[in-house]
């Protein structure tokens, strides 16, 4: 049963107030060496069928629901067979 990970993150150049808030507060508690923060979101799927079919399904799921192409991008990674 293939296990597939999808990671959703903002496109380069899209301002993310949540990441900016984390960065600002990390610096205020002493982590001045943090240059930037990027928050992303991941979804882990267990699917039936073979790896090729699983990746095809997860790509469709990403297109139809998980990401918004206006401001986000996604990457797909196989975790295990």
């Amino acid at each position, binding site marked *: 049963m293939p296990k597939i990970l999808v990671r959703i993150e903002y496109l380069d150049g*899209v*301002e*993310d*107030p*949540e990441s*900016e*808030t984390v960065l600002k507060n990390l610096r205020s508690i002493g982590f001045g060496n943090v240059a930037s923060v990027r928050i992303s979101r991941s979804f882990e799927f267990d699917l039936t069928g073979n790896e090729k079919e699983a990746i095809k399904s997860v790509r469709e799921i990403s297109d*139809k*629901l*998980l990401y*918004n*192409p*206006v*401001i986000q991008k996604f990457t797909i990674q196989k975790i295990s067979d």
Partner: protein
Amino acid sequence: MDSKSILPESDKPRVAILRMEGTNNEDEAFHSFRRSGAEPEYVHINEISRGHIDLEDFSAIFIPGGFSAGDYVRAGAIFAARLRFSVMDKLVRFISSEKPVIGICNGFQVLAELGLIPDIGGRQDRVVTLAPNISSRFECRYVYIRMTSRNKMFSARFSNGKPRQVPVAHAEGRVLASDMKIIDAIDENGQILFRYSNPDGTGCGYPWNPNGSVKDIAAITNPAGNVIGLMPHPERVYYNFQMMGNEKNDPNGTGKDFFDSVVDFILRK
């Protein structure tokens, strides 16, 4: 008494107020439509997907605010995916017949996810989204909006350019497009229905623009003007006593003018 409120039941336009788990403000919308002379009905998305309800039987569709499906994945994304899966063709036909489809707050996010606004090319492309507020806060307070298009649905009551007080309550209301040319195009097409404003209409900027929306956009429409996405909540200020400060002395709450405009538009058709 308003003449529309004494219309026979059978002559009142039916308005479908869509709901699923997590929607809210539908009660305020229901009562606003009823007070303005329409016959609102709650329609759960399951009734649509099971074929128990035909949207063509209605004169308008309203998608309320809230946190549909918990706003999991993204604000409005699951609600939009459910609608796309079950009734997208019917929705497009409904819109082609020039009937109003109005999404407020989370409903605006749903319409943007569906690509029904701004829909410049008529292909329901997703080109606009509602991103997290620049302030990184849930902004819940009164703001002002002014009409900046020639939309015929609202021109009678809103076209004088006077800023109108209305509440907002959202964390993701910043209008962004995949390309700034899209914003310029919807501006040139007259699709920016309302913009945020300061109280005297002389400027904007935070906090008057509560979310950092490009060009101070508070509401946009499709090219025909009958699909409307609006971030503020007129349904919460139907009466003047629901307004704040000097606006309590206005004859109507902003919501009454908003919903009267929609119902009048339906009745004129």
